């Protein structure tokens, strides 16, 4: 799939690919989850989902700031209040480190087992993507 729009300095701000699978949807995020249009588009796309389980695949994320962490907490709390699940998967070390710095490891649902990763979804024909 096309890698999407890149900024002049060569780093995508945030690209999100969506994959539906029944009562579960996965948002594959790549780029930076930081204050600005990046977190706004992630918020919009996450809130638009109606599945019981929403998975955020963060394997392509290279940086997250306090506003991005705040959004993850916000989405987690909103999912809990609606008896839904928000799960983070493929969290890269740089993001996990920041999550641990602010004591959110025990708050957010983070999938640690690589065997649970669903790489086959990347080939799903129902995938779509947006770029912020």
């Amino acid at each position, binding site marked *: 799939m096309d890698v999407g729009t890149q900024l002049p300095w060569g780093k995508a*701000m945030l690209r999100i690919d969506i994959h539906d699978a029944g009562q579960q949807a996965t948002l594959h995020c790549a780029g930076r989850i930081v*204050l*600005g*249009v990046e977190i706004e588009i992630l918020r919009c796309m996450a809130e638009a989902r109606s599945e019981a389980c929403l998975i955020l695949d963060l394997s392509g994320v290279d940086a997250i*700031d306090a506003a991005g962490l*705040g959004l993850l*907490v916000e989405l987690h709390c909103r999912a809990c209040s609606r008896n839904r699940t928000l799960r983070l998967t493929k969290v890269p070390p*740089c993001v996990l480190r920041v999550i641990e710095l602010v*004591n959110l490891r025990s708050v957010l649902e983070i999938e640690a087992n690589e065997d649970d990763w669903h790489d086959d979804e990347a080939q799903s024909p129902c995938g779509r993507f947006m770029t912020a």
Partner: protein
Amino acid sequence: MPEPAQSVAEQRVSREFNFRGDPDSLAASRQAVMDFIAPYCSSDIEEVDILIAVQEALANAILHGCQNDSAKTIHCSVVIDPAAFTITIRDCGPGFDVDAATRASESGTNTTAHGRGIAMMRSLMDEVTYRNGGSEVELRKLRAV
């Protein structure tokens, strides 16, 4: 990662920036600072640490210092010497209660959407110093030996 034009093992380099105080300018402002700093970073981790800290400081200056007003200006200076990266960000706002904000930001698990910026900056940088009642912050990251 591109090579720096001159080695800072032998000298000090610096640059001054002025940015607009509105959120739309945040990404470009952050990138301008990082375009200057990144060639001198010794690792991707060091670069990302500085990027996040600069992002937090600029975001605070825009949101709280400038109240998202594009007519207001944020001044940023970057000094890179053999010992450290030193980034100073100053806004024109009235400042804030630094001690109270620091305590709130570092008081255990925060399950709200806000209030993590100062704790993140303090965790990622070696020194974070507020001056002028909070309207100026100096971020200092010691350089890897």
